[in-house]
């Protein structure tokens, strides 16, 4: 397929990338391209300049920084799946990454791309909200850090502004917490119809629902009810009651809004029970 004319540059440093993004109108970062190239084919996106991040080595590493697991924005799903740092600090990231797309997509698709696209059906946004991740964004005026609850603003919209670049996603190590992820996909490893992510630590839970709004939705009432819970199946089910009714999900070919409300409640229960069962006691 013939794409619209586009200009391309491959900077050697993050500073060069930011300079290109803030200098040229219609410039967009190109990470793995597993979404961007396809939406360019469909002419759903029409960037004038692609700033390829491929050579920015500091964005390709996974390590620890200030007590957090630091995942560079250009780290691929395939890298997450085999990372010993992820295995030690937050294995749910590898577990979920292994179910994104297929082998070819996991070899190219990146963590930064997944979150910056902010497609409501993507895997990582609800997961990173539940894990309490933070996002490092660099721009012409320096670096800032944004919490997950403030990062995802809506469909295809994040806190990354014009001329800025997401450089890393920081995830707190699980310590004694357990994590869970559940939902309904179209076919095995397919697109999510509804997803739910949960993390459970001593008497506390964080729960985020995906695919029901423009950005992940925290199940705040369920979280409050789970405060001090024994996390038995009965108490988790009771805590989730009314979650579905509190949501305003879309209807589409994969399911009606009412169906999504129901699946959201079921998925939240499953994610929390899985998380609780994985807690290190």
């Amino acid at each position, binding site marked *: 397929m013939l794409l619209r004319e586009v200009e391309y*540059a*491959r900077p050697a440093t993050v500073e060069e990338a930011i300079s290109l993004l803030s200098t040229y109108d219609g410039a967009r970062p190109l990470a793995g*391209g*597993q979404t961007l190239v396809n939406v360019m084919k469909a002419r759903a996106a029409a960037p004038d300049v692609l700033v*390829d991040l491929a050579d920015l080595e500091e964005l390709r590493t996974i390590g620890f920084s200030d007590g957090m697991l630091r995942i560079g924005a250009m780290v691929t799903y395939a890298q997450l799946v085999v990372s010993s740092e992820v295995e030690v600090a937050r294995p749910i990231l590898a577990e979920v990454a292994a179910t994104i797309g297929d*082998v070819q997509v996991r070899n190219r698709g990146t963590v930064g791309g997944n979150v910056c696209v902010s497609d409501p059906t993507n895997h990582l946004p609800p997961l990173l909200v539940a894990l309490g991740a933070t996002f490092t964004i660099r721009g012409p005026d320096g670096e800032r850090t944004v919490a997950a609850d403030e990062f995802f603003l809506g469909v295809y919209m994040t806190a990354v502004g014009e001329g800025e670049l997401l450089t890393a996603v920081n995830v707190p190590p699980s310590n004694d917490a357990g994590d869970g992820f559940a939902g309904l996909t179209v076919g095995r*490893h397919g697109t999510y119809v509804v997803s739910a992510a949960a993390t459970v630590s001593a008497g506390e839970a964080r729960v985020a629902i995906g695919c029901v709004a423009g950005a992940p939705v925290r199940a705040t009432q369920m979280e409050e009810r789970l405060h001090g819970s024994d996390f038995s199946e009965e108490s988790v089910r009771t805590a989730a009651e009314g979650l579905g009714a509190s949501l305003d999900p879309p209807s589409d070919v994969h399911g009606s809004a009412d169906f999504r409300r129901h699946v959201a409640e079921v998925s939240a229960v499953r994610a929390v029970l899985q998380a609780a069962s994985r807690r290190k006691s």
Partner: protein
Amino acid sequence: MPAPARSLAVSLEVNGEQVEMEVPARRLLVHFLRDDLGLTGTHVGCDTGNCGACTVHLDGRPVKSCMLLAVQADGRRITTVEGLAPDGELTPLQRAFNEHHALQCGYCTPGMLMSATALLERTPHPSEEDVRLALQGNICRCTGYVNIVEAVVAAGRGGGG
């Protein structure tokens, strides 16, 4: 700082040979391979990143060449289906595809071979489940996959038969 350009000189290795060429930034890798280099073994199936018929190896890993710009492959190493058996001698996997009748129309076969070759490099003796997971990104509309999976498992057992 590199200035953005609509056309760039690229230098990459394709099936062991160095290629240097000027390409438009908007050209997809699959079209570069097929139209500029004449390597038509790599197929365009869906053009939306779903079917995997355009799978090639980028630095040894399977990727879909319709979701990559040719300029992104600058400085990298590409292997296409033509590069699997450069001297005309079929690989054990290709022989297994023949012996297990692992194709009907053959359109998806180049992509299947590239994905399965990458699997066998990492997992020399894959189980049926390993093969099915590795071929998740490759769609076949004819066979129902049974013979394809059998052929890959058989190749891992060291024989076509």
